[in-house]
């Protein structure tokens, strides 16, 4: 896709959407939002950027390949479940503590895991399909 308007606006929109996505993720515990929604917004940002600037440009903006993000996401979510076990409580019991006046807890960390997993999995599908779209094949 080669339009000047999309190319220009997508740069701003990309940044804004990513900020919005992190914002949604972090405030999710108290206001509408959360890891799942945040991840969907982030995927939208990357999908838009890839449409405007091409796949490789979008890939360069990723810290890790999408499927690695899935792995990290699942690991983070799993690790957030474990501290409760060390304290002799049932798995996934939320542990809360205050960090510089902000309440942080394992459920928030778990939500970050959700965010990374959903983001990685959807992006893997979209990037994969977009890559394949450049080599379309006959039939279904």
């Amino acid at each position, binding site marked *: 896709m080669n339009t000047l308007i999309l190319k220009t606006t997508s740069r701003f929109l990309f940044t804004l959407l990513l900020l919005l996505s992190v914002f949604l993720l972090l405030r*999710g515990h108290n206001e509408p939002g959360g890891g799942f929604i945040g991840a*969907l917004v982030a995927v939208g940002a990357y999908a838009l950027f890839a449409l405007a600037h091409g796949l490789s440009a979008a890939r360069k903006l990723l810290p890790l390949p999408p499927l690695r993000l899935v792995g990290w996401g699942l690991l983070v979510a799993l690790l957030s479940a474990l501290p409760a076990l060390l304290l002799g409580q049932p798995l996934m019991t939320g542990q809360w503590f205050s960090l510089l006046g902000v309440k942080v807890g394992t459920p928030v960390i778990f939500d970050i895991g959700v965010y990374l997993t959903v983001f990685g999995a959807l992006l893997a599908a979209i990037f994969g399909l977009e*890559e394949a779209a450049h080599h379309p094949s006959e039939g279904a």
Partner: protein
Amino acid sequence: MVVASIVAFVGALTAPWLHRWLGSTAGWALALLPLGLAVYFASLLPDVVEGQTLRHSLAWVPSLGVNFSFYLDGLSLLFALLITGIGTFIVIYSGGYLKGHPNLGRFYLVILLFMASMLGLVLADNVVTLFVMWELTSITSYLLIGFNHSEFRSRRAATQALLVTAGGGLALLAGLILLALMGGSLEISELLGQGQVLREHPLYLPALILVLLGAFTKSAQFPFHFWLPNAMEAPTPVSAYLHSATMVKAGVYLLARLQPALGGTEVWSSALMVFGLATLLTGATLTFRHTDLKRLLAYSTVAALGALVFLIGLVPLTDYYAAMGFATFLLAHSLYKGGLFMAAGAVDHEAGTRDINQLGGLFRVMPLTGVAVVLAALSLAGLPPVLGFIGKEVLYVAALQAAPAWMVGLAVLGFAAGAMLALLLVVPFFRGQPPQAVHEGPPSLWLGPLVLAGLGLLLGLFPGLYNPLADAVASAVKGKAVAYHLKLWPGFNLALLLSLLTVLLGVGLYFLYPRLQAWMAQEPIPGPENAYVALLRGLMRLAAGVERLLQSGSLRAYLVWTFGGLVGLVGLALFHGGVLLWPAGASSPKLEQVLLLALMLLGTIGALRLRSHLAMVVVLGIVGAGVALVFLLQNAPDLSITQFLVETLTAILIALVLLQIRNIGSVPRGRWLDKAVALGFGSLVTLLMLGVLAQPLELHLSQFFAQKSLPEGFGRNIVNVILVDFRGLDTFGEITVVGLAGLGVWALLKRRQREERP
């Protein structure tokens, strides 16, 4: 005992490494594991013969009453000694028999794992532990039969054995659970005390049938006997160990173990006696068809297993003879049959053939194996002075005491075939000329047969050595203390006459054998195996038919089946459940709702009329956005945001997929089936919604979450708190699925790219 079991499993896991380090001597080193266990169990002998029982338990799922609990009495001790004792020689023998085989390390691993599972099976007190071990022996047996997995026959035999025994295992599981429910405990030791309750329970018969199915399939009883001879595709150490001495006796063990609880009814005794005798005769008759050493021995094993089941059926009908006969014949058979199998393998290994018509003069070149075969054959024929003679004598006494005359007669016939087989096995060692360059194998090949056959002789000459343990075994089977004096020479009685008759008949059959064999081997005899084959073939055909119908490869067909099926099934439930309701007191719609509805309808109509796929996706987006707005109007911002985002990303994904299909053309007209299914699904959801709204709103959970969200989850967004805290584990499962789905999409796309760009 728990430690012994764990040692057995862990020891088995080290086998491949030990094999790599030690090379060809690994067999001798690995044999130390079963040997050590055998010594341990032997050290428990004094306590057990005094009538003590040992019990150890390790909690597993205590809330359900499932424990790793172990129980040792005479019966389990005899089996444990057989498993570890014969196991020792089998491991040594394997080292010689499979010398240089590329997969020998794996073989050691699986056969030792089998040993550990079998030990667990006979020691288990908890029925769940027993079942798990039972299935583990089926699985290891499968792996061992199919050890030569490049051979089609091995694979087929392995699958057959697995399907038959694991299928029976499922029945057994159901039976054991029924018993546990009836008796109120999962521990066998406690169920044994509940015999009265179990036998008078209305579910006694179903439970009994299920348990018998499990035991009969495992112990190759008629009509499930056919898998055992086919399992002879396995390497000989496996045949000697699993398919004669130990695993096939698991069913017999289970019946003996449960005898005090389930036995004593007419159906128990008649079922076991009839099926046992049928198996004995089937095994005896089919012996005549073969000339292959291993097949001959396999059918004789089938016969012996039948005899053991027959004896268990007799236990409640006699005072102690049947229990004692069981204890003696069981040991005798394991010793002589294990030895004979190993000897047959040694002959095959050295002479290159197992056909008795091509073997001759072996005694001169293989004297040690020859001695072992002669001693074991004496036991098989039931001749003095070996243990097999005593076992058969006591068996005859028991049968004469309680079984009808015709059953005794048939049993004599069955044993006569055993005597004939003994002659068949011994003759090639003495008559004829040895094949070229045949010589005695290495010690690993003759040590096992010689020791096992020698033990048969030793215990035959001095039955007092075995007497205390035999008493303990018989007591466990009988359910009360038994003391009986085993003697080699019981004096002249009817049983002795029957023994004589058996041997004479056997000799007669031996002379008839060549002609009978030629006649019987000619034609295939229809048997239960045909039913098995037909069943399997029918299942495959059914699966293929269902697959053609449901998994046609067309995405549209999948959707039609999924949604059509959903409409049919849920619609039926709605109709029958009587929840086709109209909500009372529905409020009249507001203006913005009407407008939204009109917008969505417009989108739907547009989607139906458009002929371009891409345009359709975009127009359907209007419907999705409308739904999101409805959520927003209903004060559900979370749902609304999610709906918007999902709608957007779905549109992108579908557009990307559509781009891949080059010759997609335009959407064809017609498609009435698709439209009907879509309409049906829409109507179904509408009806469901109406039905739900007509019910009084259940606020129990909503209130719970609303109250607990902030104080316990430290969050005001109830939806999010539920997702990441209250129902966190569910979410974890869901994101795992999402992650795997992403991986799946990626893998599919990669594969296609590779196919296109080789």
